[in-house]
């Protein structure tokens, strides 16, 4: 259990950061779901001068998905959109076994490195990050809302 559920992960799970059901002046709201495990995630971003001024999430899911989303918000807030996309990609590759290039920038996200050893939980850890990537992509397309269903 300790391999998967590190204390940092449990801290984020018990006291999530930037968890909120709404966001003032939100630029984009995306909804991501994973029908296989029933995870649901709403992610909202506010963009000021090309930077993520605020990122909040809400939803239901396992401890890994909720904690990872919480750690993601800490790592993403304040970053330029392109920089945040790059960081999300670094996290995604880490979930597929690669050594992270931006370990410091991932912040508490680095605690999820061990999840790569649990293939069925990788999608849980990725949910928040993939929602962030989609929110930024949606913003860059000029839209304000998007909904995605992950099939596995």
């Amino acid at each position, binding site marked *: *259990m300790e391999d*998967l559920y590190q204390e940092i992960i*449990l801290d984020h*799970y018990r006291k999530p950061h930037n968890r909120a059901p709404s966001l003032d002046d939100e630029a984009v709201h995306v909804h991501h779901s994973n029908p296989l*495990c*029933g995870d*649901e995630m709403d992610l909202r971003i506010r963009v000021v001068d090309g930077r993520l001024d605020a990122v909040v999430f809400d939803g*239901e899911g*396992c401890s*890994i998905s909720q904690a990872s989303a919480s750690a993601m918000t800490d790592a993403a807030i304040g970053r330029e959109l392109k920089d945040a996309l790059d960081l999300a990609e670094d996290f995604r590759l880490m979930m597929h076994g690669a050594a992270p290039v931006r370990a410091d920038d991932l912040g508490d996200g680095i605690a999820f490195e061990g999840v790569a050893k649990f293939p069925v939980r990788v999608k849980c850890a990725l949910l928040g990050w993939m929602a962030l990537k989609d929110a930024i992509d949606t913003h860059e397309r000029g839209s304000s809302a998007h909904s995605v269903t992950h099939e596995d």
Partner: protein
Amino acid sequence: MSIDVEAVRARYPVLDRELNGNRLVYLDSAASSLTPEPVLAAMDHYYRWSRSNVHRGVYPLAEEATDLYEGARTDLARFLDADPRGVVFTKNATEACNLVAYGYVRAHLGPEDVLLSTVMEHHANLVPFTEAARAVGAEIRHVPLTEDGQLDLEAAAELLADGRVTFAAFIHVSNVLGTINDVARVSAMVRDANDRAVVHVDGAQAAPHLPVSVRELGVDSYAITGHKLLAPTGIGALVARPELLERMAPFLTGGDMIRDVTLDGATWNDIPHRFEAGTPMIAEAAGLSAAITELETLGMPAVRAHERSFTAALLDALGTVPGVRVHGPKDVDVRGSAVSFVLDGIHPHDVGAMLGSRGVCVRVGHHCTKPLMRCLDVAATTRASAYIYNDVDDLEPLVEGIEAAAAFFAR
């Protein structure tokens, strides 16, 4: 005759495994059962001794292979009290349901027909028929559930009242709620409302656990899968009335299912071979026969009695755990051995991970029943499901694991 669980367990090599130093407690038989030694031996013997194709060669090996394969058909027909001419081997229950959806529903139903389904269906017995109904332009109606997770038969009577239901497909035992549906009664209701109606039942969770007589149930077709009843993966069956098979269009075409072939077309082999195109699963059929022998040796009434008392003990044990809510009927007379529950505030994935780390294997997720999950207003559940190798000594590791998850993930 009761079941000697220690003697049963000794036949399952995987039960000697330990997980993280814990005895393996396998409570996921509704997903797939374990495989006993004689089933492994039967498959091994075919490959080592009789390896050849069926229905073709005239040498001894080929005759043995044909005997193994056709013997499995006879064995399954006897096990389910059905006509062997109506037993079509498929790769699993899903394919058996699709065979009916393509061979019967799509071939014979039209916009004037109505299909009857239920809210508790496994996707295997739902999606083939929603797709078939859409393809032929037919309406599909769904029987709702009562508060305790049984089919609402009053509502079913209303859905049948206009006499337009000409095809019904429903599950015998729910893989989530454990509910044992009164198949004979529902089947009779469907026929009383329209005597031309065809009744198809998904028996994947029933045949491994209950004495089943397809004849007495009064259904036209009954889908089963081998891997839930001690047999290998890769073999299932549609057990149908021969008269229904005679009316069904071929589904997969090719070798073995033909009588004659010209460059322009073909005529079809007799049932059931008409529905078994290509080289079939021969080793798996040998394994299925051995699995049926295992179950017949124990006796299906004894299997049911064992699981009934285990399930009662399981429900009692779960009742002692704070925050646990069990779905499905409380009355063990109308429920099988699959027990789904939620632990307040803790996601089933986390519960399952904690249990798994302690050697307790359960299923978490939506169990291929998304409409039912919506009806229960949950995203997912944790499910413990028992079989002949489970006993009350499996309850303590389960309960301790749930309590450990509750403590570990407390917020």
